[in-house]
């Protein structure tokens, strides 16, 4: 929605790319714009045409659950809002079609339209819509247009398509009415969707009592797709919770899964909550088939519970198939036109899947999101920013300074005229609260001149309506009752600012996050609370004052802390865009975890880490970035645009920067004696195994007779007798006949780190493959195999093909390493066999998880005040909308400092951080927040309390007359916390936007009183 409003973004919709020539930095792209038969410049999106249209077509957005007219708006928040005519359905346009096209159309329609069996071409001109249109926007003569644009780089974000579950006949999708896909369920759960947020059985529109989710439909080996779709597990868990909250009638939800892949930040905790709250029953098993019970259209699922070891028949009223993500149909075509490659499945191929998430096989063309394979939203957002950063390298000549569009400020003086907008937020608010009643309640509050509801106040349409509302009623105070001001106030403020309405005359009331979402079961009380909150909001709004933002110059340079792969990437991207960058690394070399001997090769393509690192370092060195090795950041002060950095160590200096990228990485868990680590010599961590791979490389493969050297082994005897008679080290694997990996050591463990470390499953499998190829019998003890990165699921299959044994351990169960002097075997309960097993082993590898790097994390937390999450990693500002930013402006996160991730994701996030940093650096000024404290010199007695109290040293006593002191507060240092205001004994300090009077008015309004003062 922001994109639609951005002055520098042209959205060409209903169009396709038909050609792309040239070279990076200078592409010429040809675009074919399909006719929409509605003039974008005229359409006001009023919807009159839809009412007039007699023709019904299938609705793609509601996935066929609801019909739509032949003239329609694809979905309610579409950008542009212009309507479009479906040339396949419109009666008028049929006249233009050739016989062949018509036949094809008839065929298409039979599939698309369940309602209209017969297709009768109507060659008479219909034209109802053009008659209904008041602005003459309908234009049947519109033809496809071709246009050419010159661009520096191309970004492909074609996304994915839903796997067609009809292809898997055993689930009965398409045959049984009550088998739906996850996307269809999603539409039902949406307020503006088909059923206004309620789950129903399509056969009789009744609420299902028993629901079953089937996971991995068309993924992980089914329907020819070996990969994992990543988002479905969490989506099913979330949907099951939503369903239970919205429809208490749903008694029972079962999720049939294979592995629960809750790999993201906080996901494991979420699943745990769902288990604790019993919102769903989890059954591990893939159903053989779904049977239809004819009498009542209910279903029966046959499944073997692989943990309970029983065959079960689960009855269900509604079955939801969590369908896999398939490549977008058009992706191949786009790839062809752009001259880039696709992978075997039809997703866009990446140049190097082990390192870069966004580079395609052609330079200058980048890819983001699910076009390369299924992704979760935080990763999509990070990749999109990363792709933008790379693309920006070709656009350096075009950087735009901020266009200062000055709008004349509106005259907002006079007594308060408050306008209230109450947002439905789809079902999010309106599902619990009666928003219409809230609006009518608001309308009765004194000084409120207009109050209305809006389906999505933050949508383009909602914003436009806000503008109209302000103008229609000469409103000079706005109250938006919607979600949290922490994320959405800026959006509304910006809309206000655009029309010259002072953005500080706007107040947001949080009736979603802090009301409808948390009081869902208590609608009456929630309604009362929402009313009171709106009264309080209006009360504050009456006393709001217009404020003006100030400006200070920006230091257009960046600091990157940490010289691992993330830091290298961020610094390279920034430097390549021409910004001065300083990279600070505390050790004597770049590379971090990629450097020898930490990591030998990268999954999934086994590229040597050293080679990747060399490539990255060479690239960095080719830029003007300044690299300070053996140097640490000692202190940082200041704020966005004006940070002052002091370093110590090899280079000691103080310099200004405008933005900071934190890339100090994570640490690996150090086992504290568990599994015999430290006491049994042949128990290693996964990282130590990498060391062994290096040792092996250095050793000569020998035919040595020397018994002692043959007895040498990883960890074990190596240190005692590792030297061969010829002076070379023996291969550390020589005497190893079997190896066992133990996963989740120090991860998914409430005592260490409750989350998933993401990288360990694929890494262990990579290592297992390497060992298996050396003829070593390898066993992996796992809880869930979470091979989520691209190519990892294939590796998983390869490992099984090589005979690697996978043993699933139940939650809570600890694997036991047996042996006195050295580990001789591993014992545990095998969840799938249902009994204890013991596997003899010569080598135990602990796949250790990640944890926050200390003391860096705490130090930078103290220095920068960026918050840390419960897991100890830095907290992003928003998991989906702002996964790169911290709450502190100008401080960005790259890599594992924000949470465990693998190299691809780290590199993508680093590029994204560079992109975000360049957004600040692109301007030569920083805007200063006017929400600060100001001193009324007449009231000030010069006591100096505020000067002592301010942690930013913004206050100062100045001599205003001989011997008379008053306090002054420096606006560029003041952060607006308001502490001084609360301490000032003479009430001389006004804390703007949170004044005494405003707060008092809110308190009064809570208790139903109207403020008259």
């Amino acid at each position, binding site marked *: 929605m922001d994109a639609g409003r951005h002055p520098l973004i042209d959205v060409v919709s209903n169009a396709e790319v038909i050609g792309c020539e040239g070279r990076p930095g200078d592409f010429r792209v040809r675009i074919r714009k399909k006719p929409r038969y509605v003039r974008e410049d005229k359409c006001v999106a009023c919807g009159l045409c839809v009412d007039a249209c007699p023709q019904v077509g299938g609705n793609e957005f509601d996935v066929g659950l609801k019909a739509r007219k032949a003239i329609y708006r694809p979905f309610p928040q579409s950008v542009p809002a212009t309507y479009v005519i479906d040339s396949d359905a419109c009666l008028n346009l049929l006249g233009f079609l050739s016989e062949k096209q018509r036949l094809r159309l008839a065929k298409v329609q039979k599939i698309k339209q369940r309602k209209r069996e017969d297709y009768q071409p109507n060659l008479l001109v219909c034209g109802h819509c053009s008659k209904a249109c008041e602005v003459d926007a309908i234009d049947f003569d519109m033809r496809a247009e071709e246009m050419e644009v010159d661009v520096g780089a191309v970004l492909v974000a074609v996304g994915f398509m839903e796997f067609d579950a009809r292809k898997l006949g055993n689930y009965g999708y398409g045959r049984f009415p009550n088998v739906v896909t996850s996307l269809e369920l999603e539409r039902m759960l949406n307020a503006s969707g088909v059923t206004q947020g309620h789950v129903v059985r399509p056969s009789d529109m009744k609420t299902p009592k028993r629901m079953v989710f089937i996971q991995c439909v068309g993924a992980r080996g089914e329907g020819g797709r070996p990969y994992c779709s990543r988002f479905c597990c969490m989506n099913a868990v979330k949907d099951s*919770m939503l369903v239970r*909250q919205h429809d208490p009638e749903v008694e029972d939800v079962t999720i049939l899964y294979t592995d629960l892949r809750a790999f993201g930040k906080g996901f494991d905790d*979420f699943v745990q*909550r769902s288990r604790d709250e019993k919102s769903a029953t989890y059954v591990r098993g893939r159903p053989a088939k779904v049977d239809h019970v004819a009498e009542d259209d209910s279903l029966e699922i046959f499944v073997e519970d692989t943990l309970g070891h029983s065959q079960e028949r689960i009855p269900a009223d509604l079955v939801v198939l969590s369908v896999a993500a398939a490549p977008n149909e058009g992706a191949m075509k786009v790839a062809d036109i752009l001259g880039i490659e696709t992978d075997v499945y039809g997703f866009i191929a990446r140049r190097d899947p082990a390192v870069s998430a966004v580079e395609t096989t052609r330079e200058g063309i980048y890819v983001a999101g699910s076009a390369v394979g299924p992704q979760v939203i935080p990763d999509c957002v990070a990749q999109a920013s990363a792709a933008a950063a790379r693309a920006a390298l070709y656009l350096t000549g075009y950087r735009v300074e901020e266009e200062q569009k000055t709008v004349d400020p509106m005259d907002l003086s006079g007594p308060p005229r408050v306008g209230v907008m109450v947002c439905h937020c789809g079902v999010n608010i309106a599902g619990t609260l009666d928003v219409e009643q809230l609006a009518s309640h608001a309308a009765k509050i004194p000084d409120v001149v207009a109050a209305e509801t809006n389906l999505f106040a933050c949508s383009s349409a909602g914003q436009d309506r806000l503008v109209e509302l302000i103008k229609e009623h000469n409103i000079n105070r706005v109250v938006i009752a919607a979600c*949290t*001001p*922490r994320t959405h106030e800026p959006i509304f403020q910006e809309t206000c600012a655009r029309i010259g309405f002072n953005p500080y005359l706007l107040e947001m009331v*949080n009736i*979603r*996050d*802090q*009301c409808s*979402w*948390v*009081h*869902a*079961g*208590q609608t009456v*009380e*929630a309604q*009362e*609370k929402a009313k*009171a*909150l709106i009264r*309080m909001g209006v009360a504050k709004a009456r006393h709001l004052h217009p404020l003006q933002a100030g400006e200070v110059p920006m230091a257009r340079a960046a600091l990157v802390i940490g010289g691992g792969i993330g830091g290298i990437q961020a610094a390279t991207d920034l430097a390549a865009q021409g910004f001065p960058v300083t990279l600070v690394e505390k050790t004597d070399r770049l590379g971090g975890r990629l450097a020898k001997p930490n990591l030998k090769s990268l999954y999934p393509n086994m590229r040597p880490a050293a080679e990747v690192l060399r490539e990255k370092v060479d690239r960095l060195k080719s830029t003007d970035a300044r690299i300070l090795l053996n140097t640490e950041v000692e202190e940082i002060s200041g704020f966005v645009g004006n940070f002052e950095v002091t370093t110590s160590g090899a280079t000691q200096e103080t310099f200004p920067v405008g933005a900071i990228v934190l890339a100090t990485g994570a640490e690996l868990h150090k086992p504290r004696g568990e599994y015999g680590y430290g006491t049994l010599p042949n128990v290693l961590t996964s990282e130590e195994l990498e060391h062994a791979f290096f040792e092996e490389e250095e050793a000569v493969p020998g035919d040595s007779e020397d018994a002692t050297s043959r007895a040498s082994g990883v960890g074990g005897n190596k240190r005692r007798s590792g030297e061969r008679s010829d002076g070379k080290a023996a291969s550390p694997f020589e005497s190893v006949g079997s190896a066992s990996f133990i996963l989740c050591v120090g991860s998914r463990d409430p005592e260490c780190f409750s989350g998933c470390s993401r990288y360990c499953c694929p890494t262990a499998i990579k290592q297992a493959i390497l060992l298996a190829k050396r003829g070593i019998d390898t066993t992996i003890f796992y809880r869930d195999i979470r091979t989520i990165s691209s190519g990892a699921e294939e590796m998983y299959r390869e490992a099984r093909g090589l005979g690697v044994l996978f043993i699933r351990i139940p939650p809570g169960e600890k694997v036991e390493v047996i042996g006195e002097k050295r580990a001789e075997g591993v014992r545990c309960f095998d969840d799938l066999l249902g009994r204890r097993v013991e596997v003899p082993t010569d080598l135990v590898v602990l796949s250790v998880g990640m944890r926050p790097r200390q003391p860096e994390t705490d130090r930078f937390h*103290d220095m920068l*005040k960026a*918050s840390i*999450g*419960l897991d100890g990693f830095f*907290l992003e500002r928003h998991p989906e909308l702002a996964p790169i930013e911290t*709450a502190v402006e100008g401080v960005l996160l790259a890599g594992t400092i924000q949470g465990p991730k693998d190299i691809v994701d780290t590199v993508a996030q680093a590029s994204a951080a560079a992109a975000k940093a360049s957004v600040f650096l692109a301007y030569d000024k920083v805007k200063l927040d006017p*929400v600060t404290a100001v001193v009324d010199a007449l009231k000030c007695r010069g006591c100096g309390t505020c000067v002592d*109290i301010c*942690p*930013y040293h913004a206050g100062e006593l100045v001599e205003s007359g001989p011997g008379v002191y008053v306090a002054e507060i420096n606006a560029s240092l003041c*952060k*607006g*916390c*308001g*502490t001084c*205001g*609360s*301490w000032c004994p003479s009430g001389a300090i006004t*804390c703007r936007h*949170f004044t*005494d009077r405003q*707060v*008092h008015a*809110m*308190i*009064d309004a*809570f*208790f139903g*009183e109207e403020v008259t003062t």
Partner: protein
Amino acid sequence: MKAVRTKPRPKRTPPKVPANWNPNIVVFACNWCSYAGADTAGVSRIQHQPHFRMIRVMCSGRIQPGFVLRAFERGADGVLVSGCHFGDCHYISGNERAVEQFEKTKNVVTLLGLEEARIRLEWISAAEGARFAQVINEFTDQVRKLGPSPLAGNGRAKE
């Protein structure tokens, strides 16, 4: 029992809590941690009791005794002051100041004859949605046990 209804209120007899009575609670929260924590509770749909109203300020340091007293004066049955954990304040040390202010406030509140349990100070971080919900539930129950504030209803009349 009868004494409860007379205007100048003598020493309170053991509170008579009306059946189905719910307290009115004002919660002051700083923007960066506690208010964000309440949002987190929302995002994770952690349900809690709805009898409180939130007033957002930028930092708990802003919460002056006057705010709390005004709330009681207007009829609040309980007031919760919340901010970031020590060391986490977005403005470095605002919450340390808030403690000092809170102590002062508590003194005045008890002087007014209100129970100490009607006012509470809590540190809740942005990530602690569940804790926010728990604090709200606990505090609501605690105030509910105390019954309506003796100032509720006639606080304004005194003016």
